[in-house]
């Protein structure tokens, strides 16, 4: 899932300062799971902003709505009546959701309330960890299901750097050495021969370079 973190209240206050009537729109998918922008977080933020603005003597009306997924037009169109009632939308979705709103509601400012950070998983209760960089050319079959592009600080593809200590990365001692994890996993899988496979220098063209990527499925286009 996409993991994000809500912006500090002071920053959000500055972003919404020009407006008197705003809609806070949450998303019920990724950002709900990481406690950044679901229905509960919308309610808390709305309450906090009302208190903060009232304390400062600022007039503001805040409406709240949460849709299933803000990156899909089918869902955000449910929010159309609420959007039309307000001067701006403060979106608690990821960057894709904010831009989907901006595309759909051309005349209404779509403002970000969340910093989108990474693609990751819930490692344990309350802890979210980055696992995928979206490099566009997945080699997890060779690496035993552990990604060195994301989880190795040096993005090494052909084995460890040799600088790890007690299984921890020399760049960040709070991080597990990805290559130690890969080797341990390949040992469990009986695939240690994968370490003999030479991985050439990565072609980064499928990744985030040269502008936004696009994927087209003609078989789904009518």
């Amino acid at each position, binding site marked *: 899932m996409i993991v994000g973190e809500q912006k*500090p*209240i*002071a920053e959000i206050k500055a972003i919404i300062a020009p407006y008197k009537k705003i809609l806070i729109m949450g998303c019920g998918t990724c950002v709900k799971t990481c406690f950044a922008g679901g229905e*509960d977080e919308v*309610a*808390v933020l709305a*309450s*906090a*902003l*009302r*208190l*903060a603005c*009232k*304390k*400062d003597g600022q007039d503001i009306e805040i409406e709240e709505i949460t849709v299933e997924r803000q990156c899909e037009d089918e869902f955000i169109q449910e929010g159309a009546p609420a959007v039309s009632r307000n001067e701006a939308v403060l979106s608690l979705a990821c960057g894709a959701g904010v831009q989907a709103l901006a595309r759909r509601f051309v005349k209404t400012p779509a403002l970000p309330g969340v910093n989108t950070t990474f693609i990751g998983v819930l490692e344990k209760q309350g802890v979210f960890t980055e696992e995928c960089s979206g490099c566009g050319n997945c080699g997890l079959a060779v690496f035993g299901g552990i990604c060195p592009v994301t989880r190795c600080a040096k993005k090494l593809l052909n084995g460890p750097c040799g600088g790890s200590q007690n299984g921890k990365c020399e760049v960040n001692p709070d991080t597990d050495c990805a290559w130690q994890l890969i080797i341990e996993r390949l040992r469990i899988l009986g695939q240690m021969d994968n370490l003999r496979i030479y991985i050439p220098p990565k072609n980064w063209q499928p990744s985030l370079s040269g502008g936004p990527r696009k994927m087209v499925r003609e078989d789904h286009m009518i």
Partner: protein
Amino acid sequence: MTENFKPKITLFHCINAFGDADELALNGKDTCEIQTVKMACSSMVKDVFLLRAFEAGADGVVVLVCPEGQCRFLEGNIRAKKRVAWVQNLLDEIGLDGRRLSLGNMAAGDNAAADQTINNLLKNLAEVGPNPAV
């Protein structure tokens, strides 16, 4: 603090720790007005409820929970403690002052502990004054 300031306090309490606000020594005295919200377990305290208490006009909010290790639902009071700490930070961030919100542990029937928690909050409110967002 102005002499006429009689704080409005919203008291969230677990029914297992605390029964009735009428039993509070402070209740009925001219020190504060107390509104209570009963919960089956203190883990029912959500951040939005605490904030809405302030939106509704509370100058201070108290959450009374069972002592750690004695929650009949095991972790309810731990969850309440973390949520209260979260909202205290939020109150500091928005300039309302986190001292307006406090949590007190009390064994069942220990109303003296409840009184003590509320007294401590009243001392904080004497410093921070009425809720500026009302």
